[in-house]
């Protein structure tokens, strides 16, 4: 038995059956990270001592035969925009390079209460802005399937760490696809819960009206376990409401009506956006598997899909320009480059120099764009217009739920691309979110599962199948994902 191959469920069971100790498991992961993460760069920090201490405490509880949570002792990798008390949290930005969190995020508190062991913090695009991790101030993460390619983003480090078996599970955050897209590129499962399902308290805010924390693991079953552990209403996040509990039996799953939104399959036009033929072909095969197994499958139309990127890239920068105002050089960062303190004469200059130095190109671009679309004379034409189209996109989703229960589509228009391929053109990078951002704008739950079983070292780059559901029908989406991987996936 190789500990690294175990699923989240098997890992927890193995610990409780005393097949191996939490400490042994932790040594295994720590040593492989030390050896192999130089190549992948999934982690920004690894909590060697704290993880071993936490693991030993779990071993103590097992020895005393205490009641344990199913996730007790299971290691987790955490995206570096989620606060863990006392640990460095950088959001992959120079402006937070030496920042240590003053408290635990609610999701971390919940996992701590479940005796989950925190392995380390993972790399990401700065402040979760990007689709490749190339915007990290500390260097990009590489895709374990092909190190000349991006792992996706912004939760690229989390997805890569799970794909490379540096951790059995991870947390990411998804604002426009930042959990699902890297999960698709790295051949793992990623879930974006409904807006309101999971507390964002302690998540460094990027776009407060959209951001959600989501689980990543190697199966939909494992993702479901982690989701159960983190969801729920939290008094520290008034937008959190949790989701209804309850199981979906296999009989109930077979009754789920599937919709195929034709706009999610349009081919790439010359110079335009669209879905690559091989991605479409793989996803069509998955859909065929559902159909052959007696699922009701129906084509539906969501014509406003094509406007999601414009809406998203107006609303997101608008909120970014406000949310990132707190990084002012006064409270953060703890320290900037040497000699910096002497280079300004007044407060205003300090703000400008600290932010000029501390933010990377994409953060700056979004702050400027957001400031522009919110400014007098442009507010109605851009921001308000975008909010209205967002409302129409939400209504359009609602209109299809009479006929179908979920939507199946590709997660991404392409497979993992090469480093540098899209960095020169922000519009090309933004187009990576074209199939994921609509669910975010409407607050819907959406899952990405690999269309088939992939092996690192195999010839194929992974493709993700996306399952989008009604708001707060998170468990329905997850149940269908589990059914797919158990019975239908080749």
């Amino acid at each position, binding site marked *: 038995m190789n500990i690294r191959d175990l699923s989240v469920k098997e890992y927890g069971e193995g610990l409780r059956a005393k097949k191996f100790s939490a400490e042994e498991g932790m040594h295994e992961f720590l040593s492989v990270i030390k050896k192999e993460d130089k190549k992948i760069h999934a982690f920004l920090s690894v909590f060697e001592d704290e993880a071993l201490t936490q693991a030993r405490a779990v071993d103590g509880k097992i020895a005393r035969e205490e009641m344990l949570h199913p996730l007790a002792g299971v290691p987790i990798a955490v995206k570096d925009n989620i606060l863990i008390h006392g640990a460095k949290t950088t959001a992959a930005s120079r402006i937070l390079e030496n920042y240590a969190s003053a408290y635990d995020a609610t999701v971390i508190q919940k996992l701590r209460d479940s005796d989950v062991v925190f392995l380390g913090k993972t790399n990401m695009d700065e402040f979760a802005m990007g689709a490749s991790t190339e915007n990290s101030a500390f260097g990009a993460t590489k895709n374990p399937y092909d190190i000349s390619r991006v792992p996706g983003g912004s939760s690229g480090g989390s997805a890569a760490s799970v794909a490379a078996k540096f951790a059995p599970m991870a947390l990411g955050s998804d604002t426009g696809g930042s959990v699902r897209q890297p999960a698709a590129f790295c051949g793992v499962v990623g879930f974006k819960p409904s807006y309101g399902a999971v507390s964002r308290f302690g998540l460094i805010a990027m776009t407060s009206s959209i951001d959600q924390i989501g689980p990543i693991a190697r199966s939909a079953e494992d993702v479901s376990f982690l989701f159960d552990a983190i969801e729920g209403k939290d008094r520290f996040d008034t937008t959190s409401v949790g989701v209804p509990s309850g199981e979906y039996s296999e009989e109930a799953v077979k009754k789920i009506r599937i919709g195929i939104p034709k706009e999610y399959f349009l081919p790439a036009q010359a110079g335009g956006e669209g879905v690559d033929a091989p991605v479409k072909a793989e996803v069509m095969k998955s859909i065929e598997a559902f159909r052959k197994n007696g699922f009701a499958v129906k084509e539906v139309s969501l014509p406003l899909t094509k406007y999601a990127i414009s809406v998203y890239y107006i609303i997101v920068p608008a909120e970014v320009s406000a949310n990132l105002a707190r990084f002012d050089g006064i409270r953060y960062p*703890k320290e900037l480059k040497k000699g910096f303190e002497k280079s300004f004469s007044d407060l205003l*200059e300090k703000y400008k120099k600290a932010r000029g130095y501390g933010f990377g190109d994409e953060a700056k671009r979004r702050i400027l764009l957001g400031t*522009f679309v919110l400014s007098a004379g442009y507010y109605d034409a851009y921001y308000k217009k975008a*909010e209205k189209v967002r*409302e129409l996109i939400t209504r359009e989703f609602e209109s299809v739920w009479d006929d179908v229960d979920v939507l199946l589509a590709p997660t991404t228009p392409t497979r993992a691309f090469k480093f540098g391929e899209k960095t020169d053109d922000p519009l090309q990078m933004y187009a990576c979110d074209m199939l994921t951002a609509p669910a975010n704008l409407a607050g819907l739950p959406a899952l990405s599962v690999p269309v088939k079983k992939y092996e690192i070292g195999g010839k194929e780059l992974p493709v993700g199948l996306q399952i989008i559901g009604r708001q707060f029908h998170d468990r329905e989406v997850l149940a269908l994902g589990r059914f797919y991987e158990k019975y239908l996936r080749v």
Partner: protein
Amino acid sequence: MPEKITKETLEHLLSLSRIELTEEEKKNKEPKLLNDLQRILEHFEELNEVNTDGVDVIEGGKAGVNEYRKDEEKSDFRKEDATEQFPETHGGYLKVPAILEHKKKSTNN
């Protein structure tokens, strides 16, 4: 819809955003930044194709139910955990550069 973002508009946005570019960045990055912003704004014009007459929205989020709670302290938050992260502190408080200047007696006016 959009009027071109000029270099002057960009300077103004940088100033509003409290971001200063270095001389090197101004030379090497500003032209591309200007061009990128222009292209992105042009892309947004496609939204004019969507009829939004009569659409009412709550800007900045979703309609929800107001949450009430008792006004009582429950946090186990340690103040020092936050203040220790500040670049400069004085007596446990955040220290900021002076905003008002002392006039020195030796000045001529």
